[in-house]
Protein backbone atom coordinates (compact mmCIF):
# COMPACT_ATOMS: atom_id res chain seq x y z
CA UNK A 1 0.00 0.00 0.00
CA UNK A 2 1.09 3.56 -0.62
CA UNK A 3 1.75 5.89 2.24
CA UNK A 4 0.24 9.31 2.80
CA UNK A 5 2.04 12.38 3.97
CA UNK A 6 0.33 15.66 4.76
CA UNK A 7 2.53 18.31 3.21
CA UNK A 8 0.32 21.30 4.00
CA UNK A 9 -2.44 21.83 6.52
CA UNK A 10 -4.41 24.81 7.66
CA UNK A 11 -7.55 23.63 9.41
CA UNK A 12 -9.46 21.48 6.94
CA UNK A 13 -7.45 22.77 4.01
CA UNK A 14 -4.89 20.08 3.28
CA UNK A 15 -2.48 18.79 0.70
CA UNK A 16 -1.76 15.10 1.11
CA UNK A 17 0.90 13.32 -0.95
CA UNK A 18 0.14 9.66 -1.71
CA UNK A 19 3.50 8.08 -2.44
CA UNK A 20 5.96 5.19 -2.47
CA UNK A 21 4.34 1.77 -2.57
CA UNK A 22 6.93 -0.85 -1.56
CA UNK A 23 4.78 -3.57 -3.14
CA UNK A 24 4.59 -1.87 -6.54
CA UNK A 25 5.90 -3.93 -9.44
CA UNK A 26 9.10 -2.46 -10.87
CA UNK A 27 7.84 -2.49 -14.43
CA UNK A 28 5.36 0.26 -13.47
CA UNK A 29 6.78 3.76 -13.19
CA UNK A 30 6.43 5.17 -9.69
CA UNK A 31 3.96 8.04 -9.38
CA UNK A 32 2.91 10.58 -6.78
CA UNK A 33 -0.75 11.38 -6.33
CA UNK A 34 -1.91 14.44 -4.42
CA UNK A 35 -5.15 14.96 -2.57
CA UNK A 36 -6.30 18.53 -1.94
CA UNK A 37 -9.08 18.94 0.59
CA UNK A 38 -11.01 22.00 1.61
CA UNK A 39 -14.05 21.99 3.84
CA UNK A 40 -15.67 18.62 3.31
CA UNK A 41 -14.62 18.19 -0.32
CA UNK A 42 -11.55 16.84 -2.03
CA UNK A 43 -9.93 16.73 -5.43
CA UNK A 44 -7.39 14.11 -6.46
CA UNK A 45 -4.57 15.27 -8.73
CA UNK A 46 -3.36 12.78 -11.36
CA UNK A 47 -5.15 9.79 -9.81
CA UNK A 48 -2.73 7.33 -11.41
CA UNK A 49 -2.84 4.21 -13.53
CA UNK A 50 -5.42 1.45 -13.22
CA UNK A 51 -2.90 -1.03 -11.82
CA UNK A 52 -2.14 1.16 -8.81
CA UNK A 53 -5.80 2.00 -8.04
CA UNK A 54 -5.97 -0.42 -5.07
CA UNK A 55 -2.87 1.11 -3.47
CA UNK A 56 -4.01 4.71 -4.06
CA UNK A 57 -7.60 4.10 -2.99
CA UNK A 58 -6.68 2.38 0.25
CA UNK A 59 -4.07 5.01 1.13
CA UNK A 60 -6.47 7.85 0.35
CA UNK A 61 -9.28 6.19 2.32
CA UNK A 62 -7.06 6.10 5.38
CA UNK A 63 -6.88 9.92 5.27
CA UNK A 64 -10.10 11.11 3.71
CA UNK A 65 -13.59 9.91 2.83
CA UNK A 66 -13.27 8.86 -0.84
CA UNK A 67 -17.00 9.46 -1.18
CA UNK A 68 -16.30 13.18 -0.66
CA UNK A 69 -14.00 13.38 -3.67
CA UNK A 70 -15.79 15.65 -6.08
CA UNK A 71 -13.27 15.60 -8.90
CA UNK A 72 -10.00 14.45 -10.29
CA UNK A 73 -7.57 16.72 -12.09
CA UNK A 74 -5.65 15.14 -14.96
CA UNK A 75 -2.57 17.15 -15.90
CA UNK A 76 -2.58 15.39 -19.26
CA UNK A 77 -3.65 12.19 -20.98
CA UNK A 78 -0.99 9.61 -20.20
CA UNK A 79 -1.98 6.19 -18.79
CA UNK A 80 0.03 6.68 -15.59
CA UNK A 81 -1.96 9.89 -15.06
CA UNK A 82 -5.53 8.72 -15.28
CA UNK A 83 -6.12 5.20 -16.63
CA UNK A 84 -7.67 4.44 -13.21
CA UNK A 85 -10.51 6.84 -14.00
CA UNK A 86 -13.05 4.10 -14.73
CA UNK A 87 -12.40 2.55 -11.32
CA UNK A 88 -12.81 5.85 -9.46
CA UNK A 89 -16.06 6.34 -11.35
CA UNK A 90 -17.23 2.86 -10.31
CA UNK A 91 -16.98 4.16 -6.76
CA UNK A 92 -18.42 7.59 -7.44
CA UNK A 93 -20.08 8.00 -10.85
CA UNK A 94 -20.72 11.71 -10.16
CA UNK A 95 -17.04 12.55 -9.93
CA UNK A 96 -15.82 15.09 -12.48
CA UNK A 97 -12.55 15.06 -14.37
CA UNK A 98 -10.81 18.36 -15.17
CA UNK A 99 -8.58 18.00 -18.21
CA UNK A 100 -7.36 20.00 -21.21
CA UNK A 101 -10.05 20.34 -23.87
CA UNK A 102 -7.53 18.72 -26.18
CA UNK A 103 -7.95 15.38 -24.39
CA UNK A 104 -11.68 15.65 -23.65
CA UNK A 105 -12.54 13.04 -26.22
CA UNK A 106 -9.45 10.87 -25.74
CA UNK A 107 -9.58 10.21 -22.01
CA UNK A 108 -13.13 8.78 -22.19
CA UNK A 109 -11.37 5.73 -23.66
CA UNK A 110 -10.21 5.16 -20.06
CA UNK A 111 -13.77 5.61 -18.75
CA UNK A 112 -16.41 8.23 -18.00
CA UNK A 113 -19.25 9.80 -19.90
CA UNK A 114 -19.82 13.19 -21.47
CA UNK A 115 -20.96 14.44 -18.06
CA UNK A 116 -17.69 13.37 -16.42
CA UNK A 117 -15.39 15.79 -18.20
CA UNK A 118 -14.81 19.45 -17.60
CA UNK A 119 -12.71 20.69 -20.50
CA UNK A 120 -10.10 23.26 -19.54
CA UNK A 121 -9.42 25.98 -22.14
CA UNK A 122 -5.81 26.61 -23.21
CA UNK A 123 -5.49 29.74 -21.08
CA UNK A 124 -6.41 27.83 -17.91
CA UNK A 125 -9.34 28.14 -15.53
CA UNK A 126 -10.36 28.38 -11.90
CA UNK A 127 -11.37 25.15 -10.21
CA UNK A 128 -13.60 25.63 -7.18
CA UNK A 129 -13.33 23.42 -4.13
CA UNK A 130 -15.86 24.38 -1.48
CA UNK A 131 -14.80 28.00 -1.13
CA UNK A 132 -11.21 27.51 -2.24
CA UNK A 133 -10.18 28.47 -5.76
CA UNK A 134 -7.51 26.37 -7.39
CA UNK A 135 -5.96 27.52 -10.64
CA UNK A 136 -5.28 25.32 -13.65
CA UNK A 137 -2.02 26.79 -14.96
CA UNK A 138 -1.09 26.25 -18.63
CA UNK A 139 1.96 24.05 -19.14
CA UNK A 140 1.37 23.03 -22.74
CA UNK A 141 4.08 20.95 -24.43
CA UNK A 142 5.57 20.17 -21.01
CA UNK A 143 5.41 17.43 -22.01
CA UNK A 144 1.95 16.95 -23.45
CA UNK A 145 0.51 19.31 -26.06
CA UNK A 146 -2.48 19.89 -23.76
CA UNK A 147 -0.98 20.10 -20.29
CA UNK A 148 -1.96 21.84 -17.05
CA UNK A 149 -0.48 22.27 -13.61
CA UNK A 150 -2.53 23.17 -10.55
CA UNK A 151 -1.77 26.08 -8.26
CA UNK A 152 -3.14 26.68 -4.80
CA UNK A 153 -2.37 30.31 -3.93
CA UNK A 154 -3.44 29.86 -0.31
CA UNK A 155 -1.22 26.87 0.39
CA UNK A 156 1.40 28.23 -2.05
CA UNK A 157 1.72 24.80 -3.59
CA UNK A 158 2.13 24.10 -7.30
CA UNK A 159 1.36 20.63 -8.60
CA UNK A 160 3.70 20.48 -11.59
CA UNK A 161 2.88 17.18 -13.29
CA UNK A 162 5.93 15.89 -15.14
CA UNK A 163 7.89 19.13 -14.67
CA UNK A 164 10.31 18.56 -11.81
CA UNK A 165 9.97 14.81 -12.16
CA UNK A 166 12.93 12.62 -11.31
CA UNK A 167 13.51 8.91 -11.70
CA UNK A 168 14.99 8.13 -8.33
CA UNK A 169 17.16 5.09 -7.65
CA UNK A 170 16.38 2.88 -4.64
CA UNK A 171 17.67 4.40 -1.45
CA UNK A 172 17.41 7.93 -2.79
CA UNK A 173 13.65 8.13 -2.91
CA UNK A 174 12.88 10.49 -0.04
CA UNK A 175 9.71 12.55 -0.37
CA UNK A 176 11.51 15.91 -0.32
CA UNK A 177 14.57 17.09 -2.19
CA UNK A 178 17.28 17.49 0.41
CA UNK A 179 20.34 17.88 -1.79
CA UNK A 180 19.39 19.75 -4.97
CA UNK A 181 22.62 19.11 -6.87
CA UNK A 182 22.53 15.39 -6.17
CA UNK A 183 18.83 15.17 -6.92
CA UNK A 184 18.76 17.09 -10.16
CA UNK A 185 21.02 14.51 -11.85
CA UNK A 186 18.08 12.13 -11.69
CA UNK A 187 15.84 14.75 -13.32
CA UNK A 188 18.08 15.92 -16.13
CA UNK A 189 17.72 13.08 -18.63
CA UNK A 190 13.98 12.97 -18.07
CA UNK A 191 13.51 16.67 -18.78
CA UNK A 192 15.82 16.74 -21.81
CA UNK A 193 13.93 13.91 -23.44
CA UNK A 194 10.34 14.38 -22.30
CA UNK A 195 10.02 18.14 -22.52
CA UNK A 196 9.67 18.94 -26.20
CA UNK A 197 9.76 22.72 -26.50
CA UNK A 198 12.32 25.26 -25.26
CA UNK A 199 9.86 28.07 -26.01
CA UNK A 200 7.11 26.45 -23.93
CA UNK A 201 9.62 25.81 -21.16
CA UNK A 202 10.71 29.48 -21.15
CA UNK A 203 7.12 30.70 -20.96
CA UNK A 204 6.36 28.32 -18.12
CA UNK A 205 9.45 29.45 -16.20
CA UNK A 206 8.46 33.10 -16.63
CA UNK A 207 4.92 32.36 -15.50
CA UNK A 208 5.72 30.35 -12.39
CA UNK A 209 8.63 32.61 -11.36
CA UNK A 210 5.98 35.23 -10.62
CA UNK A 211 4.02 32.92 -8.34
CA UNK A 212 4.52 32.51 -4.64
CA UNK A 213 5.46 28.85 -4.36
CA UNK A 214 6.56 27.12 -1.18
CA UNK A 215 6.37 23.63 -2.66
CA UNK A 216 6.64 22.38 -6.22
CA UNK A 217 5.13 18.91 -6.38
CA UNK A 218 5.89 16.71 -9.40
CA UNK A 219 4.09 13.51 -10.36
CA UNK A 220 7.31 11.46 -10.17
CA UNK A 221 10.18 11.80 -7.74
CA UNK A 222 10.58 14.25 -4.88
CA UNK A 223 9.02 17.55 -3.82
CA UNK A 224 11.01 20.79 -4.08
CA UNK A 225 10.49 23.20 -1.22
CA UNK A 226 11.75 26.56 -0.08
CA UNK A 227 14.73 27.87 -2.03
CA UNK A 228 14.89 24.67 -4.08
CA UNK A 229 11.74 25.77 -5.92
CA UNK A 230 13.45 28.82 -7.45
CA UNK A 231 16.61 26.78 -7.89
CA UNK A 232 14.66 24.29 -9.95
CA UNK A 233 12.98 26.98 -12.06
CA UNK A 234 16.38 28.56 -12.84
CA UNK A 235 17.90 25.16 -13.65
CA UNK A 236 14.99 24.26 -15.92
CA UNK A 237 15.12 27.67 -17.62
CA UNK A 238 18.72 27.03 -18.64
CA UNK A 239 18.28 23.42 -19.69
CA UNK A 240 18.09 22.65 -23.41
CA UNK A 241 15.13 20.34 -23.84
CA UNK A 242 13.77 18.32 -26.74
CA UNK A 243 17.05 16.44 -26.95
CA UNK A 244 17.33 12.83 -27.98
CA UNK A 245 20.56 10.88 -28.03
CA UNK A 246 19.45 8.70 -30.95
Amino acid at each position, binding site marked *: *MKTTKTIFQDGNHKWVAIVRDPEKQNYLIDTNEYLVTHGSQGILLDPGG*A*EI*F*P*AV*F*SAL*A*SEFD*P*GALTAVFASHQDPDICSSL*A*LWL*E*FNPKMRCYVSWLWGSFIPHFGGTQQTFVNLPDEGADIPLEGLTLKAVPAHYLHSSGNFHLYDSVAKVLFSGDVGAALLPPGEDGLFVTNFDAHIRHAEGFHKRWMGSNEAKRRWCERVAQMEIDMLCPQHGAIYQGADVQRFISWFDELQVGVCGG
Partner: protein
Amino acid sequence: MNPGTALAVSGPAGNTPQAGADLLRIVRINEEIKTVVRVAFKINIMALNAIFLAKRAGTAALGFGVLSNELRIFSQDLRESMDVLTSLIHGCVNDVSLVLQDSRHTRLLRQAVAQSSDQRLNRVLMAKDAENERHVEHLGSLRKQLGRALDDAARLVELGGVLAKSAKIEAAYGQTFAAALTQVSADFDGVVEEIRSSLESLRRSTFFRGN
Protein backbone atom coordinates in the same frame (compact mmCIF):
# COMPACT_ATOMS: atom_id res chain seq x y z
CA MET B 1 -27.30 -18.91 -13.13
CA ASN B 2 -24.65 -21.53 -13.65
CA PRO B 3 -22.59 -21.73 -10.42
CA GLY B 4 -19.48 -22.43 -12.49
CA THR B 5 -20.07 -19.21 -14.35
CA ALA B 6 -20.23 -17.15 -11.17
CA LEU B 7 -17.03 -18.71 -9.90
CA ALA B 8 -15.25 -18.00 -13.16
CA VAL B 9 -16.31 -14.36 -13.17
CA SER B 10 -15.84 -13.50 -9.55
CA GLY B 11 -12.82 -15.68 -8.79
CA PRO B 12 -9.50 -13.95 -8.24
CA ALA B 13 -8.29 -14.75 -11.73
CA GLY B 14 -11.59 -13.70 -13.37
CA ASN B 15 -12.36 -15.49 -16.61
CA THR B 16 -9.80 -13.69 -18.75
CA PRO B 17 -8.21 -16.87 -20.19
CA GLN B 18 -11.56 -18.11 -21.52
CA ALA B 19 -12.52 -14.65 -22.81
CA GLY B 20 -9.15 -14.31 -24.55
CA ALA B 21 -9.55 -17.74 -26.16
CA ASP B 22 -13.13 -16.85 -27.11
CA LEU B 23 -11.89 -13.81 -29.00
CA LEU B 24 -9.57 -16.03 -31.02
CA ARG B 25 -12.40 -18.49 -31.71
CA ILE B 26 -14.68 -15.64 -32.80
CA VAL B 27 -12.05 -14.42 -35.25
CA ARG B 28 -11.89 -17.92 -36.76
CA ILE B 29 -15.69 -18.17 -36.96
CA ASN B 30 -15.82 -14.80 -38.66
CA GLU B 31 -13.22 -15.90 -41.23
CA GLU B 32 -15.30 -19.00 -41.98
CA ILE B 33 -18.45 -16.88 -42.36
CA LYS B 34 -16.61 -14.66 -44.85
CA THR B 35 -15.71 -17.80 -46.82
CA VAL B 36 -19.38 -18.86 -46.95
CA VAL B 37 -20.42 -15.36 -48.05
CA ARG B 38 -17.89 -15.51 -50.91
CA VAL B 39 -19.22 -18.91 -51.95
CA ALA B 40 -22.83 -17.70 -51.74
CA PHE B 41 -21.93 -14.90 -54.14
CA LYS B 42 -20.34 -17.46 -56.43
CA ILE B 43 -23.54 -19.59 -56.42
CA ASN B 44 -25.58 -16.53 -57.32
CA ILE B 45 -23.45 -15.89 -60.42
CA MET B 46 -23.40 -19.59 -61.32
CA ALA B 47 -27.20 -19.77 -60.99
CA LEU B 48 -27.62 -16.74 -63.24
CA ASN B 49 -25.44 -18.38 -65.90
CA ALA B 50 -27.33 -21.64 -65.48
CA ILE B 51 -30.66 -19.83 -66.02
CA PHE B 52 -29.35 -18.40 -69.33
CA LEU B 53 -28.03 -21.82 -70.34
CA ALA B 54 -31.39 -23.43 -69.54
CA LYS B 55 -33.17 -20.81 -71.63
CA ARG B 56 -30.93 -21.62 -74.56
CA ALA B 57 -31.61 -25.34 -74.05
CA GLY B 58 -35.35 -24.60 -74.28
CA THR B 59 -38.00 -27.11 -73.22
CA ALA B 60 -35.45 -29.87 -72.63
CA ALA B 61 -34.07 -27.89 -69.69
CA LEU B 62 -37.25 -26.45 -68.19
CA GLY B 63 -36.77 -28.34 -64.92
CA PHE B 64 -33.11 -27.36 -64.80
CA GLY B 65 -34.12 -23.72 -65.25
CA VAL B 66 -36.56 -23.90 -62.33
CA LEU B 67 -33.88 -25.49 -60.11
CA SER B 68 -31.30 -22.87 -61.16
CA ASN B 69 -33.72 -20.17 -60.13
CA GLU B 70 -34.24 -21.94 -56.79
CA LEU B 71 -30.48 -22.12 -56.32
CA ARG B 72 -30.26 -18.39 -56.91
CA ILE B 73 -32.88 -17.82 -54.21
CA PHE B 74 -30.91 -20.24 -52.01
CA SER B 75 -27.75 -18.16 -52.44
CA GLN B 76 -29.66 -15.02 -51.39
CA ASP B 77 -31.16 -16.81 -48.37
CA LEU B 78 -27.69 -18.04 -47.48
CA ARG B 79 -26.33 -14.49 -47.67
CA GLU B 80 -29.08 -13.29 -45.32
CA SER B 81 -28.34 -16.17 -43.00
CA MET B 82 -24.66 -15.16 -42.93
CA ASP B 83 -25.67 -11.54 -42.22
CA VAL B 84 -27.50 -12.78 -39.12
CA LEU B 85 -24.43 -14.76 -38.07
CA THR B 86 -22.16 -11.76 -38.65
CA SER B 87 -24.38 -9.54 -36.55
CA LEU B 88 -24.38 -12.12 -33.74
CA ILE B 89 -20.60 -12.43 -34.03
CA HIS B 90 -20.24 -8.67 -33.61
CA GLY B 91 -22.43 -8.88 -30.51
CA CYS B 92 -20.21 -11.67 -29.17
CA VAL B 93 -17.05 -9.59 -29.74
CA ASN B 94 -18.67 -6.76 -27.81
CA ASP B 95 -19.66 -9.03 -24.92
CA VAL B 96 -16.32 -10.82 -24.76
CA SER B 97 -14.59 -7.41 -24.67
CA LEU B 98 -16.83 -6.37 -21.77
CA VAL B 99 -16.05 -9.60 -19.95
CA LEU B 100 -12.32 -8.97 -20.44
CA GLN B 101 -12.66 -5.42 -19.12
CA ASP B 102 -14.84 -6.61 -16.22
CA SER B 103 -12.22 -9.14 -15.33
CA ARG B 104 -9.48 -6.52 -14.98
CA HIS B 105 -11.64 -4.02 -13.14
CA THR B 106 -12.97 -6.67 -10.77
CA ARG B 107 -9.45 -7.85 -9.99
CA LEU B 108 -8.36 -4.30 -9.15
CA LEU B 109 -11.49 -3.53 -7.12
CA ARG B 110 -11.03 -6.80 -5.21
CA GLN B 111 -7.46 -5.81 -4.39
CA ALA B 112 -8.69 -2.40 -3.22
CA VAL B 113 -11.33 -4.06 -1.01
CA ALA B 114 -8.66 -6.29 0.51
CA GLN B 115 -6.48 -3.28 1.32
CA SER B 116 -9.16 -0.87 2.46
CA SER B 117 -11.62 -0.93 5.32
CA ASP B 118 -14.14 1.21 3.43
CA GLN B 119 -17.26 -0.99 3.27
CA ARG B 120 -18.75 1.07 0.44
CA LEU B 121 -16.08 -0.28 -1.87
CA ASN B 122 -17.29 -3.79 -1.07
CA ARG B 123 -20.75 -2.76 -2.24
CA VAL B 124 -19.21 -1.36 -5.43
CA LEU B 125 -17.46 -4.71 -5.93
CA MET B 126 -20.72 -6.60 -5.38
CA ALA B 127 -22.50 -4.38 -7.89
CA LYS B 128 -19.61 -4.93 -10.30
CA ASP B 129 -19.86 -8.69 -9.79
CA ALA B 130 -23.59 -8.53 -10.56
CA GLU B 131 -22.86 -6.50 -13.69
CA ASN B 132 -20.17 -9.00 -14.75
CA GLU B 133 -22.65 -11.81 -14.27
CA ARG B 134 -25.13 -10.03 -16.53
CA HIS B 135 -22.43 -9.66 -19.20
CA VAL B 136 -21.50 -13.35 -18.96
CA GLU B 137 -25.16 -14.38 -19.12
CA HIS B 138 -25.74 -12.14 -22.14
CA LEU B 139 -22.70 -13.65 -23.84
CA GLY B 140 -24.07 -17.13 -23.05
CA SER B 141 -27.40 -16.15 -24.61
CA LEU B 142 -25.64 -14.84 -27.75
CA ARG B 143 -23.62 -18.05 -27.93
CA LYS B 144 -26.86 -20.05 -27.95
CA GLN B 145 -28.44 -17.75 -30.56
CA LEU B 146 -25.36 -18.13 -32.72
CA GLY B 147 -25.56 -21.93 -32.37
CA ARG B 148 -29.23 -21.88 -33.39
CA ALA B 149 -28.49 -19.58 -36.34
CA LEU B 150 -25.80 -22.01 -37.46
CA ASP B 151 -28.29 -24.90 -37.22
CA ASP B 152 -30.71 -22.88 -39.38
CA ALA B 153 -27.93 -22.23 -41.90
CA ALA B 154 -27.07 -25.95 -41.93
CA ARG B 155 -30.70 -26.81 -42.71
CA LEU B 156 -30.67 -24.25 -45.51
CA VAL B 157 -27.53 -25.85 -46.92
CA GLU B 158 -29.23 -29.25 -46.82
CA LEU B 159 -31.89 -27.75 -49.08
CA GLY B 160 -29.15 -26.37 -51.32
CA GLY B 161 -27.66 -29.87 -51.52
CA VAL B 162 -31.02 -31.35 -52.55
CA LEU B 163 -31.42 -28.64 -55.22
CA ALA B 164 -27.91 -29.32 -56.59
CA LYS B 165 -28.54 -33.06 -56.75
CA SER B 166 -31.92 -32.53 -58.42
CA ALA B 167 -30.18 -30.26 -60.95
CA LYS B 168 -27.82 -33.15 -61.71
CA ILE B 169 -30.80 -35.39 -62.51
CA GLU B 170 -32.49 -32.70 -64.61
CA ALA B 171 -29.24 -32.15 -66.52
CA ALA B 172 -29.50 -35.69 -67.87
CA TYR B 173 -32.67 -34.65 -69.74
CA GLY B 174 -30.90 -31.74 -71.41
CA GLN B 175 -30.43 -33.53 -74.72
CA THR B 176 -27.70 -31.71 -76.69
CA PHE B 177 -27.09 -29.46 -73.67
CA ALA B 178 -26.82 -32.40 -71.30
CA ALA B 179 -23.03 -32.28 -71.03
CA ALA B 180 -22.95 -28.54 -70.33
CA LEU B 181 -25.84 -28.80 -67.82
CA THR B 182 -24.19 -31.75 -66.09
CA GLN B 183 -20.99 -29.77 -65.70
CA VAL B 184 -22.91 -26.83 -64.21
CA SER B 185 -24.85 -29.06 -61.82
CA ALA B 186 -21.62 -30.75 -60.70
CA ASP B 187 -20.19 -27.30 -59.99
CA PHE B 188 -23.29 -26.49 -57.91
CA ASP B 189 -22.83 -29.69 -55.96
CA GLY B 190 -19.18 -28.85 -55.37
CA VAL B 191 -19.78 -25.39 -53.97
CA VAL B 192 -22.67 -26.55 -51.79
CA GLU B 193 -20.33 -29.19 -50.36
CA GLU B 194 -17.79 -26.44 -49.74
CA ILE B 195 -20.38 -24.51 -47.73
CA ARG B 196 -21.47 -27.63 -45.85
CA SER B 197 -17.88 -28.27 -44.88
CA SER B 198 -17.42 -24.65 -43.66
CA LEU B 199 -20.60 -24.82 -41.59
CA GLU B 200 -19.63 -28.16 -40.06
CA SER B 201 -16.31 -26.64 -39.09
CA LEU B 202 -18.15 -23.69 -37.50
CA ARG B 203 -20.49 -25.97 -35.55
CA ARG B 204 -17.54 -27.87 -34.13
CA SER B 205 -15.97 -24.68 -32.73
CA THR B 206 -15.25 -24.93 -29.01
CA PHE B 207 -16.73 -21.44 -28.73
CA PHE B 208 -20.14 -23.11 -28.45
CA ARG B 209 -19.00 -25.20 -25.49
CA GLY B 210 -18.41 -22.08 -23.35
CA ASN B 211 -20.82 -20.67 -20.78
